C-alpha cells in the first residue's frame, strides 16, 4: 500500500476502517462513545503552513470531519508533536501529561481509556504514513 498523507481524506478513511476492524481496541474502548477533534497547529518554519482540524467519533469510527464542529475532546499540538506520537517517539498519554498535547475536555474520561488510546495509536501506526514539510523523511510504512 502506498503511503497516505497524514490526516488527509484517504488517510482518515483507512484509519476509520482499521479502527472499526480492531476488535482488541473496540473491546478496550467500550463505553467511550464520544467525539474528538485533533487540531494541528501550523509550523511555517518547518513547512507546515496551515492549521488543520480532523474530528471523529470513537470507538465507532463511522465518520470523520474536517471542520470546527463542537466535540467533547479537543487535542491541540504542533504538527511535530503528532509526528513524534505517530512514529512512537512520544507516548500519546505521556504527551498529554507532559503538556505537549493540550487537551480540552474531561481528563478523567481520557485517563480511564488509556489502554484504548494506546491500542488506537498502535492501529494508526499500521497505516503507511506520509508526513509533510520538513517531516517528510520521518514518513513510515
Amino acid at each position: 500500500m502506498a503511503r497516505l498523507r497524514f490526516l488527509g481524506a484517504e488517510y482518515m478513511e483507512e484509519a476509520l476502517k482499521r479502527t472499526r476492524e480492531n476488535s482488541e481496541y473496540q473491546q478496550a474502548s467500550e463505553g467511550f462513545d464520544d467525539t474528538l477533534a485533533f487540531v494541528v497547529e501550523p509550523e511555517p518554519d518547518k513547512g507546515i503552513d496551515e492549521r488543520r482540524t480532523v474530528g471523529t467519533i470513537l470507538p465507532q469510527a463511522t465518520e470523520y470531519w474536517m471542520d470546527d464542529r463542537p466535540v467533547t475532546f479537543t487535542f491541540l499540538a504542533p504538527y511535530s508533536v503528532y509526528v513524534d506520537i505517530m512514529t512512537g517517539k512520544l507516548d500519546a498519554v505521556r504527551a498529554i501529561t507532559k503538556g505537549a498535547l493540550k487537551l480540552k475536555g474531561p481528563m478523567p474520561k481520557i485517563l480511564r481509556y488509556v489502554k484504548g488510546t494506546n491500542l488506537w495509536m498502535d492501529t494508526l501506526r499500521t497505516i503507511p504514513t506520509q508526513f509533510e514539510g520538513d517531516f517528510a523523511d520521518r514518513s513510515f510504512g
Partner: protein
Amino acid sequence: MSRMTGGEVLVRCLLKEGVRYVFGVPGAQLLPLTDAIFRNRERGIDFIHNRHEQASAHMADAWARVTGQPGICAGTVGPGATDLVPGVAVAYVESIPIVVLTAQTQSWRAYPSHGSTQECDQLGLFSSITKWNAVVNSWDRICELVRQAFRVALSGRPGPVHLDLPADVLFQTGEIEEDAFLEPYQYRAVDGPGADPALVEKAVELLLSAQAPLIHAGGGVLRAGAWNEVRELAEYLGALVTPTVGSRGVVPDDHPQVFKPSGYGAIGAQCGADVVLAVGARFGELDCWGQPPFWCGREGQKIIQVDRAAEMIGVNTPVELGIVGDARIVLRQIVDLVKRSTGPRKASQLLTECRATEETWMSEFEELAGSDKEPIHPLRLIKEARDFFPRDSIVCVDGGNIAVWASYLMHIYEPRSFMWAGDMGHLGVGLPYALAAKLACPEKQVFIIHGDGSFMFMNQELETARRHELRIVDIIANDQAYGMIKQGQLVACEGRVIGVDFYDTRCDKMAESMGCYGERVEKPEQIRPALQRAVDSGLPAVLDVLVDKEPALNPPDFVTLVDLWLQGCEM
C-alpha cells in the same frame, strides 16, 4: 530554689513540653544532658541511643509525624552534630517540627574557632536547614532559648530548630526557682490562629457556588489534626478529596470520595473540579505544581488556599482566595458556616467519573498483584503485606521504585499512619521512622516496605530495635540494585548502566546477627506464612524478599515521574 547543671535546666524545660524521648548518640560534651535525662527518668523522659545520629534525627522527625509533638534529637560536638544533618534536612524540607540539640566546645573558644578538637561551625551548618538556630551563650538563657525553639518550631509552617550548647554552659551549675519553668501556654500559642470571618464567608460562597468541589488536603491537615473536619466538610458538600503523598490517611483510602495521590482518579478530579479548597498544601512537585495538565488551570478552576504560613499562599499556582490560619480551626469555621447556609449536598457526576477512572487504573495493578510468578512480582509482595497487617497499622515506605509501587497499592486507613519522606525522597528513613512510630504507638503493628538499596543506609538500627524490643517488620524488596536509578539510566542512556548493581546480600542474616528475626523469601506463596512467622517471633523482624528484577525496574507511570523530575533537562 534548686541547684542544677545546664543539662538539667534543659531537661526540665523539655519536660514542660511533654518530651518523652531524646534520640541521639552520647558524647563527652553532652554528658550533663544525658546524665540529667538519667536522673529525671521517673519524670517520664528517656534517652534512646542510636547507632548513627542520622537515625536519631529521623526518629525525632517520625516521632513528630506520629504524635504531632516535636521530636528531639541530640548529637555531640563536631561529628555528632554533622551526622545529624541529613535527618534534619529531611524534616526541614517536609515541614516537620523537631528540636536539634548539639554540644559545642567551650564558649570562650568557639565562634571563631581556635582549633579545639571536633569543633565546627554548627550554627552555620544548621542555619540553612532549620527555621531558627542559636548558640545558648549563657546558663541564664537556657529556659528562654528553649522556649524560643519550641515557639518557632511550632509556629507558621512548622520545621526544625537548633540549639548549639557550649559544654561550659551545660556543665555550669546555678540556683533556679521552680517557677522559672513555664507551662507552654505561657510562652507560645497552643492553638490557632483562626481566619477573618469575612474570608471564611467568601470561601463558603465559592464552595457553595461549585458544581464539583474538591478538597486537596496536605501535610498541614495532619500537623493540625484536622482530618475530622476534612471528612465532615467533604461528606456534607459531596466534595472529592485528594490527599497529598504526605497526608495519606486523612480520609481512609476506602472512603468513596477519596483518591490516591498521583493516580488517574486524582488527576481527573484535579482537572475536573471547578472549586478547590487546598488546606495545608503548597502544591509542590509531587502535586504537579497545581498547574495544567495535571490541574485544570485558572480558566476553569478557582482555588481557595488555607495555610498557616502567609508565605505559602499562591507560591506555586495563582489562587482566588488565600486564607492564613490553622487548618483545623479554619476548617471548623468553614464547616459551621456551610452547615448554617445549606443542607447536605450530593456528590457531582465528576465523582462517578473519577471513581471509574481510578478503578480502571488500579485494576491493572491489582491484576499484577495477584501474580503467582517466580521470582516474586513487587506488587504481589505489597499486596501480601497490605492484606496481612491490620487496618490501623503504621506503614513506612523507603525506597525508589518500590516506594512508588507501594504508594499506589497500599491502602492507608488512618491519619498519621503512612510515613514516606516523599518530598525529600531521602533513602534510609524507613527503619528509624518505624522505630519511632513503634515507640509512640506500641499497641500498633508497624512495618516497612523497603528497597534493598535504602535498607542498607540505616540497617545498623536493627540493633536499636532489638535493644528496645521494638517489634517492627521490615519487608525488603530485594532486586539487588538501585532499581529506580537503573531504570532511569536504561531509559535515558540507551541501555548503559553504571553504579547501580549490588552483590547478593543476605539482609535476613544481618538481622539475625543483631538478635532480630530474619528470613529470606523466594516464592510468592511463602510471603504470608513468613509474615506470620515474623510477627510470631516476638522480635524485630526482617524479611529479605527476592523480587523479580524486571518489573521492579518498571513501576507504573515511571516516565511521567521522570518527566516531572527532569522537566527541561533532556539528554
